[in-house]
């Protein structure tokens, strides 16, 4: 019940926020929050550390961008196709990666993601370092013009809420319980008769598809798909977001994404611009050393101990 109230409070906040803050910035926060939530589904609930999630974010972005520029499809179809493309890639990568565990799983996903990065770097339709520029936002269902930032923001919010709901639903379903069982003790889950690899694979595919959804949406918001989204830095950034917010919690990635994106946004201008990577590194080190459960995890611990 408490969670429900908190959700409603956050939704109200999200609905009212663009009157005060710049809508494109908020839309960016939401895209990254969805990306981090998708990643958290894998790391926090199935215990799988993927180091190649940028590949899915980027694939969603490139597919959607390419379709919007070249095919004249409406944005919702382009987003769905981008999401499917990311899910398909995730299905292939997942099949290969879930055969390994721990650090090897991370290395396999990183290697595959690097393959994808160099593919997008060299493929003629991505325009190399330029990226796909000037992606039209189009009109939703052919009716609602998305070029207005406010309208775009509410569209992104709708997508985010849908994705967030799906993750929430997955986590609290019997499927989610099995994932947690696998995270806690894989051998025991196997001995109980669960096909562990199949469960991991499915979690991987859902996570990849949702990451691609975030990428597709981001491309429409910024009217641009670029190599930044497929670079391994992005895979690292999403880990940072999730860890700072609180891995394995529902709200953690949301808060983490908001925190990191805000930091990048407000520190990138002026004198501090040169030190942004140092500051982010320091935040990461402090987080890992002193509060491993992240901001939300720490708050929850505080609440448990004191109330």
């Amino acid at each position, binding site marked *: *019940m408490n969670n*429900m109230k908190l959700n*409603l409070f956050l*939704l*109200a906040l999200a*609905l*009212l926020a*663009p*009157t005060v803050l*710049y809508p*494109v*910035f908020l839309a*960016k926060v939401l895209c990254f929050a969805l990306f981090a939530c998708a990643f958290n589904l894998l790391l926090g609930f199935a215990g799988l550390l993927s180091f190649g999630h940028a590949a899915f974010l980027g694939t969603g972005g490139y597919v959607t961008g390419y379709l919007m520029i070249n095919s004249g499809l409406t944005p919702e179809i382009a987003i769905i196709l981008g999401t499917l493309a990311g899910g398909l890639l995730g299905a292939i990568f997942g099949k290969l990666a879930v055969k390994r565990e721990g650090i090897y799983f991370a290395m396999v996903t990183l290697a595959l993601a690097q393959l994808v990065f160099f593919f997008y*770097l*060299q493929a003629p339709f991505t*325009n*190399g*370092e*330029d*990226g796909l*520029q*000037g992606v039209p936002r189009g009109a939703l269902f052919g009716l609602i013009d998305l070029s*207005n*930032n*406010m*309208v775009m923001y509410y569209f992104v919010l709708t997508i985010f809420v849908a994705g967030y709901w799906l993750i929430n639903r997955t986590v609290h379903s019997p499927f989610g319980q099995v994932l947690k069982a696998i995270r806690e003790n894989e051998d025991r889950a196997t001995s109980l008769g669960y096909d562990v690899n199949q469960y991991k694979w499915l979690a991987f595919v859902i996570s990849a598809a949702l990451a691609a959804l975030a990428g597709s949406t981001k491309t429409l918001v*910024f*009217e*641009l798909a*670029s190599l*930044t*989204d497929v670079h391994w830095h992005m895979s690292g950034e999403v880990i940072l977001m999730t860890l700072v917010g609180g891995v394995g919690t529902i709200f953690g990635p949301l808060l983490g994404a908001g925190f990191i994106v805000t930091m990048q946004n407000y520190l*990138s*201008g*002026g004198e501090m*611009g*040169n030190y942004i990577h140092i500051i982010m590194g320091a935040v990461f080190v402090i987080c890992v050393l002193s509060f491993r459960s992240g901001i939300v995890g720490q708050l929850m611990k505080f609440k448990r101990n004191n109330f």
Partner: protein
Amino acid sequence: MKKTNRTLLSAVVSGAIAATIACSAQATTDGQVKLGILADMGGTYADICGSGCVIAAEMAIEDFGGNVLGKPIEMVSADSQLKPDVASAIARKWVEDEGVDAIGGLVSSAVSGAVSKVNADSKNITLISGSASNTFTTKTCSPYNVHWTYNVVALANGTVKPMVQAGKKKWFFITADYSFGHALEGMASKVINENGGEVLGNVRAPLGTTDFSSYILQAQASGADVVALANAGNDTVNALKAAAEFGLTEQMDVAGLLVFTPNAQAMDPATAGGMRLTSGFYWDMDDETRQWSKRFEQRHGAIPSMIHAGVYSVTMHYLNAVKAAGTDDTDTVMKTMKATKPNDFFARNATLRPDGRMVHDMLYVEIKKKDERKDKNDIYKIIKVIPGDEAYSPMLPQCNFS
């Protein structure tokens, strides 16, 4: 309980919708001139348009008097990190949320392309000083683009043509893999073919490559007369270093198609000496350039590259146009800018064409060998001045925004 939740939800939603009646900002005509400078503060191009570009723009604002239309001129700056997505996000925030009128600096064609797209939509002026691709006044031309300093056409005409005519017929390219590199390679190949030469092959290296050895080996195996470096900044420096290590510089000619003074300074004179190239500006050309460059050097700690000088020149021209027009309305200012001939220490015999291309005299220079140099800033020997009309290609009819 369920019911209260539902009423709560509907109250929230309707309240929010009532509160947010959309209003989006367009180009501002508020009489307040605000400039944005996007530069590369810590990347491959930091030496040629990093903090130096910000200083050059500051100098222009100070020299102008600091005020226009009765209000102080404001300036913001940011690090594009050479990423088009970062640049596009910053530009969007500047013009939509912070009332920026014009964005300058802009090194890397990928960054300029992204910013020019944003500005074309919101009707704000893009003052491109640092990028080379000619796309901003051809394929992706816009009434709000102003392209200063140089472009790939001028570089190809200036550097490649004399070499082909001197008998260097077979070429191989090491190209930076983004719009600038592709445009430069394409333009240079065209000039080579037109003058009876041939291109044997090319290899594309990502921006910011540090290890060029595999590319150099491919170039070495190609059997070309000239290996052309269609890249810039530290990429050129690193490529030339690798070329010298592999002995390539002794077997064939290496032509740096775009070399900036800070990079020429960083290269070993033993390998770079004698290399000929095209530049839009050289600090030691005459008294006017020396005077400005000394002032710049005092503040920046290094001699200016052509981009630094270009940023100063275009900022000055923009501010003069705002003053003459008496408004910061984009269309009026653009018209005034194109109607007045730019004329300062940088822009010689210059015109700003209706397509946004600033045509001015270019310099054909040679990098001095070690024994020819008086001090560390004595880098180029000017061979000849290339008149603007010879260096730049004519205007396309579809880009005539007069």
